[in-house]
């Protein structure tokens, strides 16, 4: 029998507010243990939470960006469970009146458009971190993270393959990065994802019993865990055995999921309204104000770049893959309005420079007007692409403008007939065999000779001019 996988994802995003969700402590990764703490985030007796307005606005933004219906009334609830990293032994979260509900994210996977519905977006507080010193019989708690704002984005079970899940996560992360509300760094834990997955016979509507997967530390791991889990559940179903509802952990080393707890051991969280916080009534104008601050989102930008600049989906996707890059691209156009060459330079040499150094376009320190000028010099034939690449690397090191570098190093392209003739003569004299080859019909030899000229000119010769002149010259041989 063929089975269809049904996948839903719960994504936790740490919001990069200056302060924590319900107190004034700094919300920062990597500080010394237990330095960003106060009576409120420690849950000391008598302390009370006060909602961080920035966290609330960011939550609204995500809801709106995911086409959710924003709620007029937003309420917080307590989720009760005991764990030493949870100072109050309850988490302030949201149960039945979250920030936003019923949205959707359109993804494009393997040549197909798919709509993944978003069930809800809600805000909650993060827990602290347990540390287990090696060889000791005790554990320690670092409460720096306790009370950090965490946004949970829950999808409907609308994904049917690990690829769907991967694409959904990629697109979701991009939207969140566009909104500039989280670093979305899985390694630092600012983005976490749990997956619910079940199988059902193809064509069946009723959902099968699901397993919840945890502990995946990268998008790749999520894909791998889902792939593993599909096989595991398939095997069980083929043996005509029932699937157990359980929570399973992804073991990165063994590349398999292992049982964490069964349904019987599941918590009863005893949700009830958080009495220390009021119900927040959102005025219509407030929602409109937040809506007005939304940037152009990736999907809209992709469409616009394809339409206005004539890009293919693939090229446009590269440029919009970060908001910084897309903004940079459009800044360049202000100085030199040639979308395709600018895109090629960005997607090519600039992108690979960013990747090799693993930094953003902004951190590269390359002024858009300088890059635009460099590209314009290539386009107007002043320098060759080859020389331009060398100029670029100098620009990256010195932050100088391209014209100054070209002038300093005398890199202006050589197109003058007399100068070129001299070099062509030299190349022919040095490569008698290639000349003979060409004359005996080996066309390839022409490009070799052109290459030699380029080499002798240290790349300054205009390749097109050289090729034309060389062809003329060889006719006379």
């Amino acid at each position, binding site marked *: 029998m063929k089975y269809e996988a049904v996948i839903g994802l719960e994504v936790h995003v740490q919001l990069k507010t200056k302060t924590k969700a319900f107190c004034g402590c700094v919300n920062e990764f990597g500080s010394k243990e237990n330095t960003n703490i106060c009576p409120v985030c420690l849950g000391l007796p008598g302390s009370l939470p*006060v909602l961080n307005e920035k966290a609330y606005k960011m939550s609204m933004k995500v809801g709106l960006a995911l086409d959710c219906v924003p709620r007029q009334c937003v309420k917080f609830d307590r989720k009760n469970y005991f764990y030493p990293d949870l100072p109050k032994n309850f988490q302030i979260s949201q149960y039945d009146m979250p920030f936003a509900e019923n949205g959707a994210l359109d993804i494009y996977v393997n040549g197909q458009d798919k709509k993944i519905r978003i069930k809800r977006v809600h805000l909650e507080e993060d827990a602290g971190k347990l540390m287990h010193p090696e060889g000791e019989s005790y554990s320690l708690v670092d409460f720096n993270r306790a009370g950090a704002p965490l946004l949970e984005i829950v999808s409907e079970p609308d994904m049917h393959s690990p690829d769907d899940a991967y694409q959904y996560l990629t697109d979701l992360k991009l939207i969140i990065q566009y909104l500039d509300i989280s670093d979305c760094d899985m390694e630092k834990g600012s983005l976490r994802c749990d997956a619910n997955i079940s199988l059902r016979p193809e064509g069946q509507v009723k959902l099968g019993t699901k397993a919840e997967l945890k502990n995946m530390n990268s998008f790749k791991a999520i894909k791998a865990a889902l792939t593993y889990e599909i096989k595991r559940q398939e095997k069980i179903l083929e043996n005509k055995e029932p699937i157990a509802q359980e929570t399973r952990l992804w073991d990165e080393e063994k590349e398999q999921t292992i049982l964490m707890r069964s349904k019987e051991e599941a918590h009863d969280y005893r949700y*009830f309204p958080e009495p220390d916080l009021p119900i927040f009534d959102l005025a219509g104008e407030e929602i409109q104000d937040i809506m007005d601050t939304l940037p152009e989102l990736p999907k809209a930008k992709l469409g616009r770049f394809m339409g206005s600049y004539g890009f293919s989906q693939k090229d446009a996707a590269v440029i919009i893959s970060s908001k910084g890059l897309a903004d940079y691209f459009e800044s360049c156009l202000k100085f030199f309005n040639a979308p395709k060459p600018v895109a090629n330079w960005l997607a090519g040499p600039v992108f690979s420079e960013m990747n090799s150094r693993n930094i953003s376009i902004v951190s590269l320190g390359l002024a858009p007007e300088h890059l635009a000028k460099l590209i314009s010099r290539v386009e107007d034939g002043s320098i060759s692409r080859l020389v331009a690449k060398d100029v670029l690397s100098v620009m990256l090191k010195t932050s100088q403008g391209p014209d100054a570098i070209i002038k300093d190093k005398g890199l202006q392209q050589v197109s003058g007939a007399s100068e070129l003739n001299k070099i062509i003569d030299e190349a022919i004299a040095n490569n008698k065999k290639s000349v003979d080859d060409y004359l005996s019909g080996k066309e390839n030899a022409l490009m070799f000779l052109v290459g030699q000229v380029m080499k002798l000119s240290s790349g300054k010769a205009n390749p097109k001019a050289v090729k034309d002149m060389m062809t003329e010259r060889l006719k006379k041989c």
Partner: protein
Amino acid sequence: MKLNFLTAHELQGLLAAKKIEPVQILADIEERCRIVEPKIRAYARAPFFRKISSESRLQGELSGIPAVIKDNICSDGDLTECCSRILEGFRPPYDATVVEKLKGNGSFIMAKANMDEFAFGSSCETSCFYPTRNPWNTDHVPGGSSGGAAASVAADEAIFSLGSDTGGSIRQPAALCGVVGLKPTYGRVSRYGLIAFASSLDQIGPLTKDVRDNALLLKIISGHDEKDSTSADMPVPDYPALLEKDVRGMRVAIPREYFVEGMDPEIRQSLTEAKNKLGSLGVSFGEVSLPHTEYAVAVYYIIATAEASSNLARFDGVQYGLRNSEKTNSGQPPLISMYKETRGRGFGAEAKRRITLGTYVLSSGYYDAYYLRASKVRALIKDDFDKVFKEFDLILTPTSPTAAFKLGEKTNDPLNMYLSDIYTISANLAGIPAISLPCGLTKKGLPIGMQVLGKPFGEEDIFRLAYQYEQNTAWHKEKPKL
């Protein structure tokens, strides 16, 4: 006269006229404590007289006047244990907002008052330390949970105190001890620094020797606090300045459900006399119905215990207070056994009963039948009051169904104990203000209190009526013989 017998406003006058020095107030209180405290045991720990002298120079309306606060109100660096073993040794690193306000007005904390553990009780007998006794008759309870706060004022070993009221915990002991106790409107006073029992019901309020002091204290401790999202952003009236406004023409409702067949005849008698007295001052009365009154106790014990079960979850031995991590032979993981040992030993029987009850009513499958339904009935109870206040300014009722009962009388009968708050609980559920003030003595010489309830943020009206009543009677001047 010894200064410990005076009120804050009387001391204020003497201090302003430079007739006395702050140290004299303290000396008189210290002397009084030496005599009466061994009999009453109003304080959770010995008062700290030594700390004081340097702080008493501050300028303010309470300059040089010491404050007693209930053991569930945090003050920086002082033991604050809610009279529970589980908070053993807990010294909060901060002041509650009300404590900040007291200190800002020149007062200082002299002692933490004894209370029922975590404010769970109506007799002050569930304190982990010892029960407090009623100054009028030490065989009797002072009421609770703010029993120590009320008894210390009644015994004149304090000038005033602050208590907390979740279902009557200020008003009932005020009535049983013959002092004035106010539960303000929910949101009138910041709860920041009050160790929560039931967050949607808790409110801090003053216990005083007369109405003027109560008005003075409320003015000082009220106001919006950005640290408490449930505190109201409403202007604070100058309550003492408004006391003397005439009560002629005020309309007071008498709810049928609070004056039932078989109620204590002495209490009925006192209330009738109070009503007649007020009538002679020009107040008009009308009988009304608060039809959902009979559900108040049930609703309260669902909502209050639900919130308490969650509020008290943090006492787990991890960060502060008691930790019991001795290895047991239970075979359980050490963390679980630490939780169980710590909470098992740290909480008293009543706390355990309420945590269990609250956990139960929030459990999946029971939530709708209990918590959700209780929340709906709570809204109906509030509606009852809203309707009455469309036609009336205030409501007059007894504070407690009986005068002070004997120690041990109800400790084995929790349901009977819960009914001690039958007249006071509704005000917390509805969030409205209510005061208790002395209005008589039983034949056995125990105080009787009357309760005046007002509209949300209508404390001003409550004080006005209470003040005029007090001015025309002498009950507040009666003192226990100690």
